[in-house]
């Protein structure tokens, strides 16, 4: 039998219609979490089932898909999702940020600026920014309805009281279009400023929690803070060890058991692009060459 056993982009058409209607309402109400009937996907919760469903609902044969996991194109999660859509939708895939029309991401925003013909799809584990402050859905929903976000400021204040600064480093709450407080998914707060006034459409899918939300292009996204403790993005104070970038988000990589470590760009496409353009960091390897046969006298 040669006929594929699944529909284009895996999901059936009724599911896609349901998700598409949720996406339209999410765009119309920026930052508001639209409930949707999340389906079981052929991967476990926590592996991006929400993002995969959003991508499946918007993807067309002319799209070019990029998938990143913590900035990397080459990790298991990113590769398996990319292969999933290459197989079920036959779309072209890429690792180059500027060539992609749809970018599905787990917890990073690419370093390269996004453009207007792109859609960024986030995989979201817990969409409710107030959930750890208030476990009851009925209550958090009421709080959003009333724009009652004092509790979130108390949380940030408690950070300051305890640590002297706002210690929240990822999933840093933002206010979208001066109305809804939203969880930007567990992206490092370094990425928060990229969400503001972004030319690309940003869609968020939470599969287990069954929520879709969105930030339309050119929408104000403000990280919550205080006048005397303004929001500050965090970055390790080091250049990338491979491409010497001074302004990218860095991963810390432990290199031995004696405290050795290196800092490298979390965005692999950005880092490779810079290396190809001739930038070299302190630990960038020389191009690999076959070792010449050991000559007897050196």
């Amino acid at each position, binding site marked *: 039998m040669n006929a594929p056993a699944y529909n284009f982009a895996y999901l059936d058409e009724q599911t896609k*219609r349901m998700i*598409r209607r949720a996406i*339209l309402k999410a765009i*119309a*109400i920026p930052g*508001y979490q*639209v409930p949707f009937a999340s389906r079981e996907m052929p991967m476990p919760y926590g592996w991006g089932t929400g993002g995969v469903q959003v991508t499946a609902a918007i993807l*067309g044969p002319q799209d070019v898909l990029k998938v990143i996991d913590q900035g990397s194109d080459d990790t298991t999660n990113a590769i398996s999702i990319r292969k999933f859509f290459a197989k079920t939708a036959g779309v072209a895939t890429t690792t180059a940020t500027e060539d992609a029309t749809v970018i599905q991401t787990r917890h990073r925003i690419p370093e390269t600026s996004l453009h207007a013909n792109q859609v960024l799809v986030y995989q979201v584990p817990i969409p409710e920014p107030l959930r750890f402050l208030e476990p009851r859905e009925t209550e958090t929903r009421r709080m959003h309805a009333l724009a009652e976000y004092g509790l979130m400021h108390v949380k940030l204040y408690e950070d300051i009281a305890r640590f002297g600064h706002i210690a929240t480093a990822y999933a840093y709450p933002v206010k979208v279009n001066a*109305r809804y407080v939203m969880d930007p998914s567990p992206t490092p707060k370094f990425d928060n400023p990229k969400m503001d006034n972004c030319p690309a459409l940003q869609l968020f899918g939470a599969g287990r929690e069954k929520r879709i939300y969105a*930030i339309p292009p050119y929408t104000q996204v403000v990280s919550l803070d205080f006048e005397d403790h303004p929001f500050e993005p965090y970055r390790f104070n080091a250049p990338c060890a491979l491409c010497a970038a001074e302004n990218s988000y860095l991963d810390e990589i432990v290199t031995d058991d004696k405290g050795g470590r290196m800092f490298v760009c979390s965005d692999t496409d950005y880092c490779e692009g810079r290396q190809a353009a001739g930038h070299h960091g302190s630990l960038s390897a020389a191009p690999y060459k076959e070792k010449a046969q050991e000559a007897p006298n050196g």
Partner: protein
Amino acid sequence: MTTIAELPPGFVDKVLSAQSTFRSVMDAMARPGSVQRIVPTSGAPHVMMRGTAAIALTLFDHDTPLWLDARMSESTDVTKWLKFHTGAPVVQDSSIVSFALISEGGALPSLERFALGTSEYPDRSTTLILQVESLHSGRSFELRGPGIDGVATLKASIKPFDLFERLRINEALFPRGIDVVLVADDAVVAVPRTTRVVSKGS
């Protein structure tokens, strides 16, 4: 009696046509005021524009109650076509519908009669699909809001003439409100509840 064979056809390729139509509507919603084209064509019953027909085939199903204006609901072509191709229930009570199809904008009922959502669930609101005369000529409207880089200018010939005045309820009600999709033949412009009209010329 109309048989199925006499009904105008749906999409030739249900899957890809629905995808392409959705992307046009999504882009329209994400960039209010921008004119998007709906490429795939299906048959469309008399009274219904081809853009409207494509949107219906893309977004309507048994989960989406519909409200039709008088001219649409009087046309058995339209009701049979919708019933056969989408299965969406057509109801009389406009306050519970997911979508409302308006072919005669002049007779648009008061917007308060549609679902405006609740404060807890503002998404449970009607999307108004309004057929208009033109989306490239006519009065010019300046729009601001999320999705718009500064100001977007829309040139359109719209009935009712006071549509944007009426849509000012969105300002007071937000996050509740009503989202509008304007259709002129194959052109689509969306005006979500966040869009504000800042000025208009003649």
